[in-house]
C-alpha cells in the first residue's frame, strides 16, 4: 500500500519535472511560429521540401533584420515538429506548439488529412494558420474557416487541364478514356466524379474506371483491361510509388496509349529518376515551375539546389510562399496579436513566387495550373501556351 502510494507520488513528481524541462522558454524578443510536418512515414518526401521552404522564408526575414513589432525589430523563430504522417500527431503537435511554445501562428502540414487536422486545432485556438498542399475544394469542404488560409490549386482546374490541353494541342485520339485512381480522398474525387463529368463535356467515352488501394503495386489486370478496350487516353490519380509501378507495368504489358497523364505521382523528379526513359511523355498537372514569370521563382529553385544538392520541386514554392504570406502579415500587423495577424492575412494582395495572391471570401487563393510533360528527364510546360516552355510530345513514345 505504502509502496503504491510512493510510486504514485514518484510518478507525479517525475511528470512535473519532465514538464518543467520541456517548457520551451521563448525569449521575450522573439516571434515564434510553428509547423508540424511529415518528416517521417510515407509523406516524408513532401515534408522535407516544405521544411526547406518554410525555413528559407524565415531565414531570409531574419537576415534582413527580423520583423518590427511595436517599432522594435524582432527575430522570427520557427519550431518544426514531426507528425510521422499521422493526423493524430499533427493535431497533438499543433496543440503543443500553441500551448507550450506559445506560437503566434502556424504553418500547415501536407495533404488534406494532415493539414485539416492541424488547421482544426488552430481554428479552435483562434490562431492563424497558413498552408499550402491542401486542394482548395477539400479545404473549404471541412468548414467555414476563420483562421485558416490555403494557397493551392483548385481541384476542377487540375482535373480539366488534360482535356483542355489536348483540345488546345489539336491532336487526334479515338476519344476512348481509361481512368485509374486510388481510393484516397483526391483519387476518389477526381476519378469518380470530376473526370467522368469532364470526359462527357469534352466528348470522350469512359471505357474503364478502375479504383485501387493507395499503395497498390500490382496493376496488370487494370492495364490489360484498358489495353483490351483500346483506350488512347489514360488518366491516372495515384501517389508516386504506384505511379512508378503503373508506368513500368504498362510497358511490360505492352500497352502504349497515346496520352498518359498521372496526377500527383508523376510530379516529383524521383518519378523520372526511378523510370528513366519510360518517364518520357508522361503528363502531369503542376502549379509551379522555376520558369514562371514571378519574382524570385528562378532564384528559389537555384537556392534550393545549391543548398541541398537535390533537384527542386514545386512544393518548395507553395510552402515558401505560405511562410512569406504569414511573415508579411505579421509585419503588416506590427503585432503578435492573433486577430491582428489574421486580419492582415486577409488583406494580402501581392505577387509572390507562386503568382499574385489575394484571398477569396472562403480563405483560399488559387494557384494557376499548367500541364507539364516529362521529356528527357526534365519537365516541360506544354500548356497553357503563354507559360509553355516546350512542345507536346505526341503520341507518347
Amino acid at each position, binding site marked *: 500500500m505504502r509502496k503504491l502510494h510512493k510510486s504514485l507520488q514518484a510518478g507525479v513528481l517525475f511528470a512535473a519535472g519532465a514538464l518543467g524541462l520541456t517548457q520551451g522558454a521563448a525569449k521575450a524578443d522573439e516571434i515564434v511560429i510553428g509547423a508540424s510536418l511529415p*518528416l*517521417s*512515414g*510515407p*509523406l*516524408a*518526401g513532401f*515534408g*522535407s521540401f516544405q521544411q526547406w521552404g518554410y525555413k528559407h522564408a524565415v531565414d531570409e526575414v531574419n537576415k534582413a533584420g527580423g520583423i518590427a513589432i511595436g517599432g522594435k525589430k524582432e527575430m522570427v523563430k520557427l519550431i518544426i515538429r514531426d507528425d510521422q504522417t499521422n493526423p493524430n500527431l499533427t493535431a497533438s503537435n499543433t496543440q503543443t506548439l500553441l500551448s507550450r511554445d506559445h506560437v503566434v501562428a502556424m504553418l500547415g502540414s501536407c495533404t488534406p488529412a494532415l493539414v485539416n487536422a492541424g488547421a482544426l486545432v488552430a481554428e479552435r485556438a483562434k490562431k492563424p494558420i497558413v498552408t499550402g498542399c491542401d486542394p482548395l475544394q477539400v479545404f473549404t469542404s471541412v468548414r467555414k474557416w476563420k483562421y485558416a488560409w490555403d494557397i493551392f490549386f483548385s481541384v476542377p482546374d487540375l482535373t480539366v487541364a488534360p482535356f483542355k490541353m489536348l483540345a488546345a494541342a489539336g491532336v487526334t485520339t479515338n476519344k476512348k478514356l481509361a481512368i485509374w485512381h486510388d*481510393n484516397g480522398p483526391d483519387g476518389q474525387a477526381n476519378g469518380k466524379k470530376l473526370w467522368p463529368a469532364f470526359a462527357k463535356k469534352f466528348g470522350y467515352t469512359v471505357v474503364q474506371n*478502375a*479504383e*485501387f*488501394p493507395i*499503395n*497498390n*503495386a*500490382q*496493376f*496488370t*489486370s*487494370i492495364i*490489360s*483491361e484498358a*489495353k*483490351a478496350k483500346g483506350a488512347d487516353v489514360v488518366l491516372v490519380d495515384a501517389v*508516386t*510509388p504506384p505511379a*512508378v*509501378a503503373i508506368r*513500368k*507495368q504498362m*510497358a*511490360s*504489358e*505492352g500497352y502504349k496509349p497515346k496520352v498518359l497523364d498521372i496526377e500527383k505521382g508523376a510530379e*516529383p523528379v*524521383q*518519378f523520372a*529518376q*526511378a*523510370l*528513366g526513359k*519510360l518517364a518520357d511523355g508522361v503528363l502531369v498537372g503542376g502549379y509551379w515551375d522555376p520558369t514562371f514569370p514571378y519574382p524570385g521563382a528562378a532564384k528559389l529553385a537555384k537556392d534550393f539546389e545549391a543548398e541541398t544538392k*537535390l533537384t527542386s520541386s514545386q512544393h518548395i514554392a507553395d510552402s515558401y510562399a505560405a511562410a512569406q504570406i504569414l511573415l508579411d502579415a505579421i509585419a503588416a500587423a506590427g503585432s503578435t496579436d492573433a486577430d491582428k495577424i489574421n486580419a492582415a492575412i486577409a488583406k494580402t494582395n501581392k505577387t509572390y513566387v507562386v503568382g499574385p495572391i489575394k484571398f477569396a471570401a472562403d480563405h483560399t487563393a488559387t494557384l494557376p495550373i499548367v500541364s507539364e510533360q516529362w521529356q528527357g528527364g526534365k519537365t516541360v510546360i506544354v500548356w497553357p501556351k503563354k507559360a509553355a516552355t516546350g512542345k507536346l510530345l505526341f503520341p507518347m513514345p
Partner: protein
Amino acid sequence: MPDFGTVASAILSGLLLGGMMGLIALGLSIVLGVMRLVNLAHGVFLVMGAYAGLYFLKLTGFDPLLALPLLALGIAALALPLYRYLLAPLAQRGPEAQLMTMFAVAIILQNLFVFVFSADTRSIERSYATLPLSLGAITVPLIYVIGFAIAVALILAIHGLIAHTGFGRDLRASAADPAAAATLGVNVQRVQMLTFALGTACAGVGGVLIGVAFQFSPSSGGAYLLNSLAIVVLGGLGNVPGTLAGGMILGLLQSLGGLTLGDGYRDIVGMALFLLVLVFRPEGFLAARRA
C-alpha cells in the same frame, strides 16, 4: 465482363507475383519457426535489400540480379551483428523482448534510410523489367517470370537445405526443442544466428526483386510484412513448400478479388481470406503436408 486474355493474364501474374511473395514470407517463416520471433523488421530488411541492389547497380554497373548471391551474402552479414548484439542477449527473456527490439530496429533503420537515401520513391531501372511476355492472348511482365523463377529456385534450395542437410536437421531440432538440441551438441545460438541471417537474406533478395519489378521507398516495408504474415499462416508455419503455395494462392485470390470486386478490394480479399484461414485452419491451410 473482362475478356479471356485479361482474366488469364491476371490469374497468371497473380500466381507469379505470389511466388515472389512466397520467398519473402519464407524468410519470416523460418525465423518465426526457429526463434519464435515475429520479425517486425522483416519489411525494412526487404527495403534494405532493394537499396543494396540499387546502389550496387549505380556503383558497379553490373546487373543486381546477376549478383544476387553476393547481395544476399552481404545482407546476411549485416544480420549477424544484429543477432549477436541485440537478439542473443534477450534469448532467455520470452518473445516480447525480441519482438519489441526488432520493432525498434525497424523504426531506426527506416529513419536512417530517410536520412541517407531521402524519402524518395526509387526503382532499380533495368530494360528487361518493362518487357512484356506474350503467349497468345495472355500477357504477363517478363520480370514477373524472372522473379518467379529466381524465387522458386531459392525456395527449393532452402527446402533442400532444411530437409536434407545436417544444418537443416540442426535447424529443425532447434526449432522443436532448443534445450534438448543444445544438450545433444547442437550450438543453438549459432543455428539461430544463421537462421536469422538466412531469413534476412530472403527479405533482401525479395527486396532486390521488388526493386527491379516495382518500386520502393523507406516506408514500403510495412505492406510486405503484413502480406508475408498472411502467407506464413496460409502455408503453415515452418512448411517450406507450403509457403510457396501459400504465396501463390494469396496472389491468385488477390487477382481474382480485384477482377470481380474491383481492385480497391484486392487487399481486402487478401485480409479476409487470411482471417478465414486463421479461423478455420489456424495451423495453416497446407499444414497437413508437413513432415
